[in-house]
């Protein structure tokens, strides 16, 4: 009896193991694979690395050989959602001080002036306003994460 064609689902354990080995062999930090509506993202290394942002300019990088070292998928702004991006670089804090409550949580409504977080740069704390109106549907960073310019912090659903 002919052997059935091998399943090559991205979630096959052997396939995942193969991918991990390939990553180590080729010194890749991140692999992001999609198969129809399924997706797997493997990230190597314990350190927090800042996800390379999605390229928006008209500057395509030259064809690199080998693997699909894709950018970590930045959550998309679309017709129903906005993203609040960090205007500066530093350490993100979700609350005004350690003993206080978070500035905002999922489900909160915000207006452009609502302070949503702090980003600390050089011991100076910058209050970051929402800049848009809507409801917070997703908080994309954790307190004390390193953030940089244009990094998405919050996903807002437009009112």
């Amino acid at each position: 009896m002919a052997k059935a064609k091998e399943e090559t689902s991205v979630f096959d354990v052997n396939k995942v193991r193969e991918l991990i080995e390939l990553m180590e062999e080729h010194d890749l930090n991140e692999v992001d694979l999609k198969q129809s509506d399924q997706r797997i993202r493997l990230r190597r290394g314990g350190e927090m690395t800042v996800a390379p942002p999605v390229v928006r300019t008209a500057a395509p990088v030259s064809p690199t050989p080998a693997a699909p070292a894709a950018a970590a998928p930045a959550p998309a702004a679309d017709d129903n959602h906005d993203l609040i991006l960090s205007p500066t670089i530093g350490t993100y804090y979700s609350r005004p001080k350690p003993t206080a409550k978070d500035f905002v949580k999922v489900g909160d409504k915000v207006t452009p002036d609502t302070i949503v977080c702090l980003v600390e740069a050089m011991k100076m704390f910058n209050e970051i306003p929402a800049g848009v109106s809507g409801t917070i549907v997703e908080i994309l960073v954790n307190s004390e994460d390193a953030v940089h310019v244009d990094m998405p912090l919050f996903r807002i659903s437009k009112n």
Partner: protein
Amino acid sequence: MYNRILIANRGEIALRIIRACKEMGIETVAVYSRADKGSAYLDLADQAFCIGGERASDSYLKIDRIISAAEIGNAEAIHPGFGFLSENAQFNEVCRDCNIDFIGPSPEAMQMLGDKNTARSLARKADVPVVPGSVGLVTDADQAVKDAREIGYPILVKATAGGGGKGMRVAENEADLKNAVEQAAQEAQAAFGNGGVYLEKFINRPRHVEVQVLADQHGNVVHLWERDCSTQRRHQKLIEESPAPTLPPEKREEICAAAVRMVKAADYSNAGTVEFIVDKDHNFYFIEVNARIQVEHPVSEMVTGIDLIQQQIRVAAGEKLAFSQADIQCKGVAMECRINAEDPDKNFQPCPGVIKQIHIPGGMGVRWESHVHAGYSVLPYYDSMIGKLIVYQPTRTQAIATMIRSLKELRIEGIKTTADFLVKVLQCEDFKNNKIDTKWVERDFLSQK
């Protein structure tokens, strides 16, 4: 030795520094503006942070963001490259205050040498010849006239806070002097926020010769011989070479020794360049010190075999120089051409655009230093230099031949560059026979076409 260094720069020099760090096992943190997002060289850094908008003032010049990037990136030191904040004493001090090593001289040495007039005074003290000129800034019109008579016309009026050829005017005679002083002061005030000017004797048809120096933090100072950068257009260097082809051997020794004296007098550490102007009798006069690594540093690297960026890092980390002056020989001839995204047929107008294809020359004695690649977008926000082509051969004749050959081999499609123009300069008899001076390109070469 450092575990991690942040590179406060972009493009070609950022790539150069990343490479040096990788070879030393040092991790790198890169910063980039929105305009530089997606540049391939950023992938070579261990971490890369966006620090702001396209304009340098909104990104590469933002001290707080750069320091912040160093903090969140855990960088112990910052290499400033050239341009941007590399000669900013305030940035240097901020680094020190934040316990981050600045890879360069101390803020004090940088401050002292950054003021041209103070640097000239220091040169006099160090027995380094300076261009005959006024002892201080011009404060009084009558004194200026007296000084000018003593110095001798033509007189060059120069801004003390100046650079890049701005805030300079030539007065051919006493009648021109008052206007020249006023105009130079006005331009200097606008460009540098400091209208102070001083007078210098205008040297006719000078050559520009500079000395590469390197000093550690233990008092050891060496030179890596000299470079001749006389091929310029509007005070911008086009071609640099080492050794200086017109200086007799004893003058080379003298000018290099003078540079070392200057550096010692300023208590300077790390890499730097002492610039001189040379007249047709080979008399050299101190102009200024560039307290940073320079664009044309690869030229000195080729003739001495010393990696200057790695040396900068070692010195900053507190290491003693591993060699003495006697160990540093100048062998062969190295030459560099700066490749700019400019259209020579349209008065060197900058040519931003996407590089569709690039073919990089190779072969014996060819070194290409550039961050660009096929698909790279050359942007209008930064200077127009997209790469440096360096050649190294046993003789100057061979170096010129290799440079011409590799410039012709270099093909960049999608934007205009100065490569073909440089070929024509190199083919000129005046260039080959060392008849050029710092104004030759504008005065003789371009007027022929």
